[in-house]
């Protein structure tokens, strides 16, 4: 069991490669194999999670560390810690659900099923590896593993404009990650200059003192730490994305097949926000502190901008894409507050958003499958015909608008409190996003489920089948569960996040009374 994390990370990709080699006669079974593999991975991850000890002296659980490239100080270094635990659980939970929830939509020819399952499994390996890596270089390798399958999936099985979209997606994310690569090479070089031997592990790099010009403005950006911050920020802000690095997002989410849209919005965007939490803020604290006003303003702007654009969309999937942009901006606002409760709330919100956006994209898939279109003008009056779909959709809408009792409420509330302690004006702008969020979500719901129907097709629309119901039920359980008892998702990361917060603002002691809502004080 000491290698359990290796199994969790590598099993999906190995299964994916196996599926690619399946002979023609067995191709039809590829999705079943994929689901079984992801369920095994989920079981392993759950076992590891229940063995996780919040009070352990060493925060790194199931630590594996082997030399990989000694001359560059690079290790194969995986560990489960408080910060990545929620995201690992999110990934292993959503992957099988994404397969099951899109079962009927990927019923093309068997070669397509084979390739799709294999590539999505490889993406799961990339995501899990990114979250579990404790070595910066290894983090980068897994980060890049995602890129190619996503590129191929959108390009091969996406909508009409898939080739242009996928190239745009690839170039944006590759530009970000190649700058991060330069940053990594530079950091490791500095580390090796300081200590005499190169070591790319997070722990070694955290101890590095990186010079920063403390004055405001461009001098800070062009100092060593400022440039490194920019290099890493390029990768994370594009992936998350933070406005104005989002230009790839609407068309990519819209053109991608549903399965891939779910993966992009629910899991891949979390890689960006996780990178900010795990690397960007603790490693470059002075730079993060110095750029905080700009970053918070951009995040608040993103919340409102995404919400306003979501309101005016005429296509269901594009509206969901912009809503995702708006909600990811909340997460970013929480992170850039640089307060422990804000970052904790952001981490919780990463899980919430992952679940809710996966639900929304699944609903979009259900609608598209039944209607053959996602233009809002083609919808209306579905609720009487499809009561189960209407109910499931409602639960996800309520989580998205952060209704108290849903997971979204706990996270967004913590984020807004932390943000308010930093800057009241920015928070006021951001808070309007909650109202606008209700507007576009309820608007989407009304235009599809209520109102008058366009023609008689509605009478023939079938309600959800058992697979689709199963997926929505599981998502619903998690939405309500996190809303009522958020502790299990918040407690493990508490120490790590407080350490990060202390690095950024050492004089900013956190009063015990204002602890993150729902957290048990120790």
């Amino acid at each position, binding site marked *: 069991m000491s290698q359990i994390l290796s199994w969790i990370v590598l099993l999906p990709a190995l299964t994916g490669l196996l599926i690619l080699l399946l002979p023609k006669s067995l191709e039809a079974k590829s999705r079943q194999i994929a689901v079984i593999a992801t369920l095994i991975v989920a079981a392993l991850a759950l076992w590891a999670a229940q063995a996780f000890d919040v009070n352990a002296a060493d925060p790194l659980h199931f630590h594996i560390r082997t*030399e*990989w*490239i*000694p*001359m*560059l100080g690079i290790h194969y270094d995986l560990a489960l810690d408080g910060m990545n635990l929620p995201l690992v659980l999110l990934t292993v939970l959503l992957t099988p659900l994404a397969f099951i929830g899109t079962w009927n939509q990927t019923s093309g020819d068997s070669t397509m099923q084979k390739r799709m399952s294999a590539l999505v499994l490889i993406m799961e390996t990339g995501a899990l590896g990114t979250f579990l890596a404790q070595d910066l270089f290894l983090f*980068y*390798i897994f980060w*890049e*593993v995602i*890129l*190619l399958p996503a*590129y*191929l999936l959108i*390009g*091969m099985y996406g909508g009409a404009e*898939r*080739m242009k979209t*996928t*190239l745009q997606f*690839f*170039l944006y994310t*590759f*530009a970000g990650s*190649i*700058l991060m*690569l*330069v940053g990594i*090479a*530079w950091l*490791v*070089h500095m580390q090796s200059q300081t200590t005499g031997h190169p070591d790319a592990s997070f722990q070694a790099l955290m101890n590095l003192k990186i010079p920063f010009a403390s004055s405001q403005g461009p001098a800070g950006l062009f100092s060593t730490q400022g*440039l490194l911050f920019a290099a890493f920020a390029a990768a994370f802000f594009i992936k998350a994305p933070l406005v104005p690095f989002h230009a790839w997002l609407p068309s990519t989410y819209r053109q991608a097949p549903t399965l891939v849209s779910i993966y992009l919005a629910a899991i891949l965007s979390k890689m960006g926000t996780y990178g900010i939490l795990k690397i960007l803020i603790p490693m470059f604290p002075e730079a993060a502190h110095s750029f905080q006003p700009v970053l918070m303003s951009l995040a608040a702007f993103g919340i409102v901008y995404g919400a306003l654009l979501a309101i005016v969309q005429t296509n269901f999937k594009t509206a969901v894409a912009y809503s995702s942009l708006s909600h990811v901006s909340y997460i970013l606002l929480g992170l850039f507050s640089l307060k422990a409760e804000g970052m904790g709330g952001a981490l919780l919100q990463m899980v919430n958003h992952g679940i809710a956006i996966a639900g929304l994209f699944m609903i979009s898939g259900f609608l598209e499958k039944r209607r053959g279109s996602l233009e809002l003008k083609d919808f209306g009056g579905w609720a009487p015909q499809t009561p189960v779909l209407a109910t499931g959709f409602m639960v996800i809408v309520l989580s998205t608008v952060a209704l108290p009792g849903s997971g979204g409420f706990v996270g967004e509330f913590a984020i807004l409190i932390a943000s308010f302690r930093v800057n009241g004006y920015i928070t006021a702008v951001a808070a309007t996003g909650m109202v606008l969020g209700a507007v576009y979500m309820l608007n989407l719901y009304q235009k599809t489920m209520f109102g008058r129907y366009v023609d008689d097709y509605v009478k023939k629309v079938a309600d959800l089948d058992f697979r689709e119901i199963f997926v929505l039920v599981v998502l619903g359980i998690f939405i309500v569960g996190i809303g009522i008892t958020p502790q299990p998702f918040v407690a493990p990361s508490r120490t790590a996040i407080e350490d990060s917060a202390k690095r950024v603002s050492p004089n900013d002691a956190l009063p015990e009374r204002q602890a993150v809502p729902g957290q048990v004080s120790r």
Partner: protein
Amino acid sequence: MSFSSMFPMNFIEGQQWLGILPLFCMTLTAIATLLLSALRHQGRAVAFAMLLIGSIAAVASTVVFPFQDTIVILDGVLVFDRLSQVFSAICVLAGLAAALMTLGFDEREELQPEYFTLIAFAVVGMVAMVSTRNLVFFFISLELMSLAVYVLVSMHRQSPMAAEAGLKYFLLGGAASAVLLYGASILYGATGSLDVTGIREAFQSQWNGHLPLLPLVGLGLFSVGFLFKIGAFPFHVWIPDVYTGAATPVTGFMISAVKAAATGALLRMCLELFVGPVSTEPTLVVIISAITVATLLFGSFVGVRQTRLKRIFAYSTIVHTGYVLLGFLALLGGGEGAKDAASSIVSYTIFYVVMNLGAFAVLTMISPKDNDDLTLDQLTGLGRRRPMLAFAMSVFLLSMAGIPPTAGFFGKYYLFSAALSSGYVWLTIVAALASVVSAVIYLRPMVYMYMKESEESFQVVPAIWLGSNIIVVLSLFLTVMMGLLPAWFSNLL
């Protein structure tokens, strides 16, 4: 009768024979295949077998007797060390690979047995090139290689472009060689030495590292020859036309072996010549930086718009030259970073040769019978028709784009890392951004292979491409393994 009494070369003794073995094997092979083709007109198989045996013997000698110290013969006319061994092995193997690729190509075109002779002679030139400190001997070996390659390019008789390409290459290459020779003569005039070690000593003793105009001009003109062969920016114009005109295996040979030899020789010259303050001469650094940036940007931006595969690879090789130049800049920085830079250049060259040979082996196999100047349109649907070949091609393309876990990624990382260690932060950022643009070059063939619907599928020659298949499989294996276990390969060097 002992060997030494047969060839009374008293100046070469004992262990020195080991050093000269690769050169000796390849020369013998070249002469033997030449005689064979004079005697029998249809001796392709025998000629190939000779080349195979000679190449294996040459490579084996570098593997069996790895040198730790330097063997100097004839006052530096021939120098054998680990560097020359590694680059000799690369060039010999690349030559063998080019020969293997033609085994199926022969069915489409009568390539004479002289083809193998010319490859062998070119390889002799390359091995000599990377193992000399003497400027005149260097010039002779460069010309030996170039003359053989000029003929190889024009040998593609079915293509109307081949003769044009050969002539263009000959004229431009001749001009570059003349400039190089002129530079060498100026260096000789300024320092009184034709030996690189002597020139370096003169640099240090006469001018204390700060060169006046005359030797600087000499150095500059001498470098032009190198920059021409590796295809750096203002001297790259021949590359697209010549690569398109030559037969695909010959292009593969040029893109891998010729470039590796030029890189190896340049590496030797830099290591031996630029030590101390000469290397950090500001004018020199500024000029090389400018050439690097121009090469990277030109290759990437022009390459993006190409529609014919060989031209795509031609521009791709220009971009790769830019990366290697980045490594050379780091090398000139001196100090601890220089050692890393040298090893990063060697690793990168190996990775680069492997993935290009693989890509060209695939290209030879998918080209239609009458015309081997493939366009992107002709790749349409290859992912469905030939899934394995398309997969292999994708891996090579991704490796060239530098996407992990492939060899190309680590090659690029080593170079970036070396450049950063020597303080070239902005240049590295430019190179990184250029690699984003150049990623488009490599992604476009994949778009055609996997994402476009094919209206009509063109005919694929149902030939048995044993030779090319071997190269594809080997290159694929190496590209992936070097990406997964780079440390293991670095330890081999």
